């Protein structure tokens, strides 16, 4: 493979709180442009903290971090929509904060609405939408600034299995068409394997990276690859690593 640009680099990043609780220990992770990297780990292992540190929402105590925060998108665990704004105006929010003129805002918002398949719902309020549609709105909003890197903090964790799989398929479509680099936090093994070119397994407190898996399945990925023997084998590998991570945490 040709040399690629690294868009995000954690070098030996640790986070220790004032009360000496160690949240992260020596996390090193390089993400190359165009990669889809998932961070998988038991709850409370600090995988969300990695995203929050990368985006500047949280601090770290030692190590080095390289990231271009100007072109960063973030999709939160909750849709975090403003309930008094319509779908269209919610999607325009970040452009508004950047001072983009109204006509341009509307154009971009309409484009992203089409991208996530929310046409016809532009003037609906969040309370009139299903959970999946709210998440779509949130996704569309995080893409309005055409980010180079998008962080996903368990965005589909609260959805039912059916909506989750559908959104996974659609997210891969967005990933291919928009060409962003993705850092995706989840605790679902099949979701991580289905989406990612690389899966990173973390152990719980102190959060460390225990192992990494390349997922050698070609994009575009058809929803049916979930039922291939190779998919099952990859899930099995990741699953045993995750179990080891949990055991390590219990014994630590």
């Amino acid at each position: 493979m040709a040399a690629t640009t690294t868009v995000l680099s954690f070098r030996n990043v640790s986070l220790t709180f004032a009360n000496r609780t160690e949240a992260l220990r020596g996390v090193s992770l390089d993400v190359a442009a165009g990669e889809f990297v998932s961070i998988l780990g038991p709850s409370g292992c600090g995988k969300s903290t990695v995203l929050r540190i990368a985006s500047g929402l949280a601090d770290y105590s030692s190590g080095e971090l390289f990231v271009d925060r100007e072109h960063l998108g973030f999709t939160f665990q909750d849709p975090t929509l403003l309930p008094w704004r319509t779908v269209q105006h919610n999607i325009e929010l970040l452009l508004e904060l950047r001072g983009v003129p109204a006509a341009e805002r509307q154009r971009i918002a309409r484009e992203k609405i089409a991208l996530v398949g929310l046409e016809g719902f532009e003037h609906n309020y969040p309370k009139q939408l299903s959970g999946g549609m709210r998440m779509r709105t949130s996704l569309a909003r995080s893409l309005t600034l055409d980010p180079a890197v998008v962080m996903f903090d368990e965005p589909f964790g609260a959805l039912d299995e059916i909506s989750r799989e559908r959104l996974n398929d659609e997210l891969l479509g967005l990933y291919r068409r928009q060409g962003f680099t993705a850092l995706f936090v989840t605790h679902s093994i099949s979701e991580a394997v289905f989406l990612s070119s690389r899966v990173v397994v973390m152990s719980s407190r102190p959060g460390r990276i225990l192992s990494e898996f390349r997922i050698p399945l070609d994009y575009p990925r058809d929803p049916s690859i979930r039922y291939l023997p190779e998919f099952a084998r990859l899930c099995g590998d990741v699953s045993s690593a995750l179990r080891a991570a949990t055991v390590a945490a219990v014994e630590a």
Partner: protein
Amino acid sequence: MSTSAPAPAPYHPPRPAAARPRAALAPLQQLGPPRILGALLALLYAWAQSGLEPHRRFLMPGWAALWEGAFSSPEVLAALWRSALETGRIALAGLAISIPIGMGVGILAFRWRFMERAVFPYLVALQSIPILAIIPLLQSLLGFGFLPKVLIVALFTFFAVPTTLLLGLRSLEPGILDLFRLHGASWGVTLLKAGLPSALPALFAGLRISAGMAVIGAIVSELFFVSGEGGLGQLLINAKLDFQYEQMYAALIVSSLMSIAVYLFFSWLGKRLFAHWHPSADTGGT
């Protein structure tokens, strides 16, 4: 325990789904509270009238007397109108002080937690002082003009504003604060675009309370300041001194109507502002 064959489970025949009465009955439900009020008033009135000895019946004039002695007379109507305007002026001026200052205090308390710790205990203390008890003090301090009355209204109506606003501001989703922070929004922008809109329903719950209190405060203030421009409170006192009980009742009715009108106005304004996204506007209100 019986050993015989188990009885079949009881049969439940189908039943047509009851039509939701809500839509059809909505206008009736809207009329419910005023009807109950009217019925209660009529009952109370009849009971009070029949309970009074004949020579004291003047305390409770009949509808006819009320019409003849007050509402049919252009002079009385003019006096009522002037007094209502004056009372309304005091009430609005008081709100014009308490709402902005109260919102300012609420916002400061949201911005700096120490402000909350520094100010809110005193607010609670202020609320627990019987305001009537400090009116004589205000009189000696400020005289008998417009200002002390307005201050009394402001005191009556202040408390609900910062407390409900702060409650509303605190209810903002933490993820939304993260979102604004992530995209470099200043604190002021975050307050304007996220904090205040999300606090509006809570704030309006407070404003409705304050608005009703404002009319009460204005009338109470006049009971203590029986000089200067006359409002409804003064009309009440004067009518009593002159044994014009019909006029007194007329003033009472007008002041209740004013309280209700102010309350309805704030309900209506709140609905216009957030009924489309907040559930509270559907139920809390008229």
